């Protein structure tokens, strides 16, 4: 029943999206407002239909109804409820549904907000959004990615959610990432609308800037959650591996960052119009490419979940988007002329342009490296790939320049900078940076890594700039309004949310890079095999492997794993002393390997790492080489003796786990001491806070909206009277 409703919602949704597209285009061409209104309402209707479809699919997951192919594929009755709920987006069909659902919600909100504005642009923007929705719905309805597909003979138990994905960050990460990808379709649609009707002033930017910022925030948060997952779930101890899919998410984020900066130049000075239009097209294309790469299997990556049939329609769609947008921009080049010229290279707009170039250079080199296997195969005939060393080499200098620019930008004024402004702005931050550099050179061994040393100095500069600007603003406000320090600070920020939100983002990015630079250059890593009682050194710590542990159905992380085999490690440094308990979870094999008893140990085996978090350093431990050699004999005997005694299985498994604990063998550990790595997550949180500050409606805007609503109501009542 729910399946029929869900499928019907998708089919009707497809028809609704097609209708919205056509009605909007016809309405725009003929000037019939009622058709445009109808198209807008069709988009609301689409959001409603897709909400029902989402609810239907989620309810099938929560009921564990294995007659649904998707539910049987990536859920099971013993999957914890939270993971049942989120298992939907681990499947290709489910994630497509999520994509188009988010698109319909975003579209409804933006069309609701602009229903009385931008009369020329909105119909075309509606058509673009309708067309994108049509494409994604047709993938599900026509190209066989049906989320509600049923199985003729439902299995008694499902596959369960892939154990690697059983981590809270990994479950919130996909919707965040998708909210980011999808969000960029809003400014894209309005840019296309503005180009079609040649309304190339900054109106389309003002109406969608907030959406671009929301998309940027979601995408950034999603990327960071992915990094956090990698650090705390994958047993290698890193947070970023320059994997194809990580890169695919980073590229639209970098382009989106460039866009958020360069649109300010168009708003303030009427410049960079062609640039902004091209940039949002590039950002949206990169977002589509990001969605596509995760699922395509084009590039080898840990994320490549096997080849899929989506490739051709997706590539055709991306091709159409790129060709049509480029043709449109070229045909509108004359209306995209700049209203002003660059007055001076020492001006805020010039530095925004510079920051844009660096961000785009970053996006281009990452794109180049990611797609290098395809590029090199086309050029030389052999598939070659570049690894993390390549990415590190090309991105580190660009990142350094970028952090430096994020400090310089806020100090420059529009049009041109006077020598006085320069002196007033740069003196203190440069002094702070100089002192930091000296202190680091004299009192620390930071000079071992020159890029890190440069980064620390630049970070000090940026943080000093932000602090100085906030302090100056607050004290000016205090003088003018006679407020207290906190009061002056609060009203300064509320009155200039965009500006100070932006400063906070700059500070957050600096803090994040502090964590990156410190942890990547100065971490200590040990891979070591230990017997219980043996000790080793990691950095300044002495580590002793005390004893093995074994547990049945008591995994601390709540993954629902049947068996956990772990270790107790003692850490000691001076009179500091603590224990850590890394472990491995064993999931029973479902393909019949290992025999009746052995299958409990021969399925997926995943590392559950243990981290001692700290502001100055993290201590990270994992069991990287488990050792079940002492169990293989007993398992063979148990398979033969108790293979067909299901009632005894629990006891036998418990006995095997007890044997593992009582007869210890050497196992391999990885231990890492990473200085200041926590500041990556703290910096990320600060960035988010800054973005929220910039997003929050200012009191003036709220008042403006209230008065405009009131006058509209008055107008309606007057016309009725």
């Amino acid at each position: 029943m729910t399946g029929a409703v869900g499928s019907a919602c998708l089919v009707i949704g497809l028809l609704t999206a097609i209708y919205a597209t056509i009605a909007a285009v016809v309405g725009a061409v003929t000037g019939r407002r009622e058709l445009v209104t109808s198209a807008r309402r069709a988009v609301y209707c689409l959001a409603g239909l897709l909400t029902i479809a989402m609810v239907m699919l989620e309810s099938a997951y929560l009921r564990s109804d294995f007659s649904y192919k998707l539910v049987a594929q990536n859920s099971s009755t013993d999957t914890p409820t939270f993971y049942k709920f989120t298992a939907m987006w681990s499947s290709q069909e489910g994630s497509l549904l999520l994509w188009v659902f988010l698109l319909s919600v975003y579209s409804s909100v933006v069309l609701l907000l602009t229903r009385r504005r931008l009369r020329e642009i909105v119909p075309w923007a509606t058509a673009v959004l309708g067309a994108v929705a049509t494409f994604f719905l047709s993938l599900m309805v026509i190209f066989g990615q049906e989320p509600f597909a049923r199985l003729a003979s439902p299995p008694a138990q499902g596959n369960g959610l892939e154990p690697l994905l059983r981590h809270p960050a990994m479950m919130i990460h996909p919707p965040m990432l998708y909210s980011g990808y999808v969000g960029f379709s809003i400014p894209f649609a309005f840019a296309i609308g503005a180009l079609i009707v040649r309304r190339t002033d900054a109106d389309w930017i003002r109406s969608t800037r907030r959406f671009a910022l929301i998309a940027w925030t979601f995408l950034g948060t999603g990327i960071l959650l992915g990094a956090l997952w990698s650090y705390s779930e994958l047993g290698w101890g890193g947070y970023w591996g320059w994997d194809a899919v990580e890169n695919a998410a980073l590229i639209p984020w970098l382009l989106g960052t460039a866009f958020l900066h360069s649109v300010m130049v168009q708003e303030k000075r009427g410049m960079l119009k062609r640039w902004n239009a091209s940039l949002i097209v590039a950002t949206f294309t990169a977002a589509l490419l990001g969605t596509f790469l995760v699922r395509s299997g084009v590039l080898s990556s840990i994320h490549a979940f096997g080849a899929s049939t989506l490739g051709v329609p997706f590539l055709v769609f991306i091709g159409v988007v790129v060709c049509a947008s480029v043709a449109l921009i070229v045909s509108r080049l004359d209306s995209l002329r700049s209203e002003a010229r660059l007055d001076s290279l020492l001006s805020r707009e010039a530095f925004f342009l510079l920051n844009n170039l660096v961000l785009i250079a970053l996006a281009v080199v990452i794109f180049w490296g990611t797609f290098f296997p395809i590029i090199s195969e086309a050029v030389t005939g052999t598939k070659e790939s570049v690894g993390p060393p390549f990415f590190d080499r090309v991105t580190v200098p660009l990142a350094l320049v970028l952090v430096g620019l994020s400090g310089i930008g806020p100090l420059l004024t529009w049009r041109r900078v006077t020598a006085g402004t320069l002196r007033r702005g740069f003196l203190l931050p440069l002094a702070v940076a100089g002192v930091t550099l000296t202190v680091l050179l004299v009192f620390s061994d930071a000079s071992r890594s020159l890029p890190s040393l440069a980064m620390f100095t630049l970070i000090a500069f940026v943080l000093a700039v932000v602090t100085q600007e906030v302090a100056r603003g607050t004290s000016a406000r205090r003088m003018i309004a006679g407020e207290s320090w906190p009061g002056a600070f609060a009203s300064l920020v509320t009155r200039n949310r965009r500006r100070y939100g932006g400063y906070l983002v700059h500070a957050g990015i600096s803090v994040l890079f502090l964590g990156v630079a410190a942890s990547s250059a100065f971490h200590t890593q040990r891979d070591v095999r230990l017997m219980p009682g043996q000790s080793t050194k990691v950095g300044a710590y002495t580590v002793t492997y005390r004893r093995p542990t074994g547990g049945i159905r008591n995994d601390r992380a709540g993954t629902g794993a049947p068996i956990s085999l772990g270790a107790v490690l003692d850490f000691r440094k001076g009179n500091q002393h603590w224990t850590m308990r890394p472990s491995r979870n064993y999931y029973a094999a479902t393909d019949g390997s290992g025999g009746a008893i052995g299958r409990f140990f021969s399925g997926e085996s995943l590392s559950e790492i243990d981290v001692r978090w700290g502001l100055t350093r993290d201590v990270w431990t994992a069991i990287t080489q488990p050792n079940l050699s002492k169990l293989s004999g007993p398992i063979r005997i148990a398979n033969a003796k108790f293979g067909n005694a299901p009632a005894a299985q629990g006891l036998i498994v418990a006995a095997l786990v007890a044997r593992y604990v009582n007869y210890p063998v050497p196992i391999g550990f990885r231990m890492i001491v990473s200085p200041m790595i926590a500041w990556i997550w703290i910096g990320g949180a600060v960035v988010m806070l800054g973005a929220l500050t910039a997003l929050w409606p200012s009191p003036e805007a709220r008042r403006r909206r209230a008065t405009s609503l009131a006058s509209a109501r008055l107008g309606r009542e007057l016309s009725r009277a």
Partner: protein
Amino acid sequence: MDPARKRKVRLVVALSAAVLLAGALVWTSFGEATQAKSPSQVLRAMPGRSYQVTGKVVPGSISRSGGLLHFRVRDRNGSASLPVVYTGVVPDPFRDGREVIVTGRMRGGSFVGERDSLVTKCPSKFQSQPGGKTL
């Protein structure tokens, strides 16, 4: 200098900087790249040169001794298998029959993987359909 000329100079400078950087990028990437090969190609390839090999782990070939991991990989469709010696972190999904990618070079008849270069692709189990046909 008149403004038009100044702009032209700026444009030329910017473009040549871009061309230089692009050239550097192409040079670095082709210089640092490792060729991707299948196990049977590596068996016939030059020893000493670095390759990235993608193949399936031959069931029953995994063994550990000390900190070393030994296993064999074969082509997706093929039987010739390449012995691999590897140190470093083994990704969790690493098992018999899984598709893996490892970077390294041939040394004394076996393929010596670079430390921590082993990547395991996600299992196909979550793609195949458990019993029954799609309606």
